[in-house]
């Protein structure tokens, strides 16, 4: 377990203890990671102090390599952290896209400041023209 020295500070009898700093990985990221791993290993969470949480990881199957499992767990922590960051950054845009997909009108031009833009017959984007152009 030397490759993860510092983060994994103790191992014994097929168990590794990963110390997770909350300032680096949010509780949300930790919980989602744990949820993905409860079927592959035994997990036990213990708060060490206000900043750190110990994750005790024990292999369920002897054939499963503990090092690889811990490595995957740590990678998943990073992945979940990045996912949370991206979700936070693009959350508003995603909401608008979903809302627009189910809306009848143009949510971005709800006041109708661009007359005729929502009118099918007006074809403001010239979709019909380009289609005819392609077919000709």
């Amino acid at each position, binding site marked *: 377990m030397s490759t993860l020295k510092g983060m994994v500070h103790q191992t*014994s*009898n097929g*168990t590794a203890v990963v110390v997770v700093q909350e300032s680096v990985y949010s*509780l949300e990221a930790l*919980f*989602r990671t*744990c*949820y993905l791993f*409860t*079927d592959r*290993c*035994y*997990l*036990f*969470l*213990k*708060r060490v102090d206000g900043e750190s949480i110990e994750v*005790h990881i*024990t292999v369920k199957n002897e054939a499963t390599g503990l090092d690889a499992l811990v490595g995957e767990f740590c990678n998943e922590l990073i992945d979940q952290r990045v996912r949370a960051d991206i979700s936070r950054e693009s959350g508003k845009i*995603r*909401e608008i896209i*979903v809302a627009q997909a189910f809306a009848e009108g143009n949510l971005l031009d709800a006041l109708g400041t661009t007359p005729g833009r929502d009118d099918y017959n007006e074809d403001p984007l010239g979709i019909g023209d380009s289609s005819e152009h392609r077919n000709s």
Partner: protein
Amino acid sequence: MIPVSIGIPETIRLDKEFYPASSLRRAISDFAEYLSARITDDRDYIALHIRFDPQYSSNSSTVVREFLNYALDLALKARFTAEDEASPDD
């Protein structure tokens, strides 16, 4: 790591934020065949008092790990289910 003496009640301190009482109660009910346990609610943590049926003495540590893993899984499942219901667009 998780010491358990056969036939002697052991107490394991569990953080409430990871092991809520509701999940522990459900886990105790589902594991009733293998162990008997009760919980007491302290201000900062939940104390799990656990006693083993002697016939499962050979693998008591594994059963405890299974139990705690199951309780954690229940807690996380409840947490994410509640979040999904709160934000159906996600």
